């Protein structure tokens, strides 16, 4: 175990190095660029024995990574925001052909408005592409869950690619102490990559990704659904193994002081660190509040959600993406389904486009929840009153 000062991007690069990835085809995009840069440095100074392909776009980046992984090695690419959007077409190829790629996504808003900053819209827009999704709180979790993601994705009963999501700037660029591992320590948990199922097998050649008629399509989709079901069963077991090896305490959701809470916030990503702090402060003042942190978003741990939330408390879900046109944000809709249309469940939109989710915002949400209001519609909790007076029309002076 080696302690290093790493930001979220650094933690990603460190994990990719320890996974002994052999092909890298990452296209730079803010706020992921330090990952592409760090990996190129590692290849150049021979810290990592890999081929670095300089692709011209994210569409090619993922296409290359899929091809490389099918040749029998771990391949990697990483992206954010519109980069993920550009590779959208190919996401389905990775998941449909059961290629167990692990791809870091540094969460940043999609355009337009053109933003560089933190928002979950990019990975939320890809939530139905057949990829697993993890949302992490801090650099330590990013490092650990990158390794966990490789193991669960490559399991022969799962064979499903995974996105490891970390908040742009708030996590990707936040320098923290991370307990990293040596290669020998990692190998106790993560075996060498062995290509399974479809791959370039010279002894038993096959056509990969051929046209599939209606008579077979549904069954193939169901095969993927079963892979997700298996992941939901196997991931807790893999976490037990990880926890024992490295003295950790990970779970697919984290129950932070929820058991006797009168009000609970359900949330994902870096904001959960701030929420924990607010929970502690409010508890000192006698307010019984708690946080249910979701780490695993796809497959969605719906049974755990309902088992961790007591029947009487108020529940608020914070969505860091707008979910435009929907009754509520995407995380709310999942939680609502898991809680079977519970009465005191409230949805809040916050932290879009890089807006900081402050202690004040969180405290305000808890106070609202403790008040147990009548059902409120999707609440944009941190917007200013002046919604329209942003960009003035120019006045032509004679």
């Amino acid at each position: 175990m080696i302690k290093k000062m790493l930001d979220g991007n650094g933690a990603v690069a460190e994990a990719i190095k320890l996974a002994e990835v052999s092909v890298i085809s990452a296209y730079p995009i803010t706020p992921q660029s330090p990952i592409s840069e760090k990996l190129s440095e590692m290849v150049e100074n021979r810290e990592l024995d890999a081929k670095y392909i300089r692709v011209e776009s994210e569409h090619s980046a993922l296409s290359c990574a899929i091809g490389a992984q099918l040749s029998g090695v771990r391949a990697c690419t990483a992206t954010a925001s519109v980069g993920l959007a550009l590779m959208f077409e190919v996401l389905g190829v990775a998941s449909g052909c059961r290629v167990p790629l692990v791809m870091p996504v540094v969460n940043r808003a999609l355009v337009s408005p053109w933003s560089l900053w933190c928002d979950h819209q990019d990975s939320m827009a890809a939530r139905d592409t057949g990829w697993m999704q993890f949302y992490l709180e801090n650099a330590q979790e990013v490092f650990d869950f990158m390794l966990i993601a490789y193991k669960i994705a490559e399991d022969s009963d799962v064979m499903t690619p995974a996105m490891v999501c970390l908040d742009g700037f708030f996590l990707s660029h936040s320098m923290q102490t991370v307990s990293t591992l040596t290669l020998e320590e990692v190998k106790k948990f993560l075996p060498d990559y062995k290509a399974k199922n479809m791959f370039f097998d010279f002894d038993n050649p096959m056509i990969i990704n051929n046209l599939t008629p209606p008579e077979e399509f549904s069954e193939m989709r169901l095969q993927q659904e079963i892979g997700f079901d298996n992941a939901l069963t196997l991931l807790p077991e893999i976490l037990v193994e990880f926890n024992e090896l490295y003295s950790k305490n990970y779970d697919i959701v984290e129950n932070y002081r929820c058991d006797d809470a009168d009000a609970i916030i359900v949330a994902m990503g870096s904001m959960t660190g701030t929420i924990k702090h607010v929970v502690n402060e409010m508890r000192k003042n006698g307010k019984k509040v708690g946080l249910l942190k979701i780490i695993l978003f796809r497959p969605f741990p719906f049974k755990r959600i309902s088992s961790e939330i007591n029947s009487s408390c108020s529940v608020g879900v914070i969505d860091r993406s707008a979910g435009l046109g929907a009754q509520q944000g995407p995380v709310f809709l999942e939680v609502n389904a898991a809680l079977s249309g519970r009465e005191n469940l409230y949805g809040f939109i916050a932290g879009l486009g890089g807006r900081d989710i402050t202690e004040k915002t969180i405290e305000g949400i808890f106070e609202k929840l403790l008040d147990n209001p009548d059902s409120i519609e999707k609440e944009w909790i941190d917007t200013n009153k002046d919604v329209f007076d942003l960009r003035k029309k120019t006045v032509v002076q004679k």
Partner: protein
Amino acid sequence: MSRQSKKLLNQQRSSNSLVGPAGTRYSNVNTGDWRIHKPVVNTELCTLCGQCQDYCPADVINRDNDTGKLIVDMKYCKGCGICDTVCAKKAIKMEKEMEDIRYD
């Protein structure tokens, strides 16, 4: 895991199949069956220039090893008529081979 999934998981582990869109059985489709018009070559006009062979999009025109003549492989020729269009000597003519399909 739901009961349906558990049953299917066991099915997956015991099956000998690949998961996802893998193709391991190879067969050629008789694309000649798709034809409505067929190319007819007038060997007296044909100068063996090879234009038809060069332009055939299905690559089904080949030179016979013994006679040197250009032969159309009718098992796979789809009757597109490009050979007719490019032949400089008008040695190839497309002829109706099948009745029009009528949906009454």
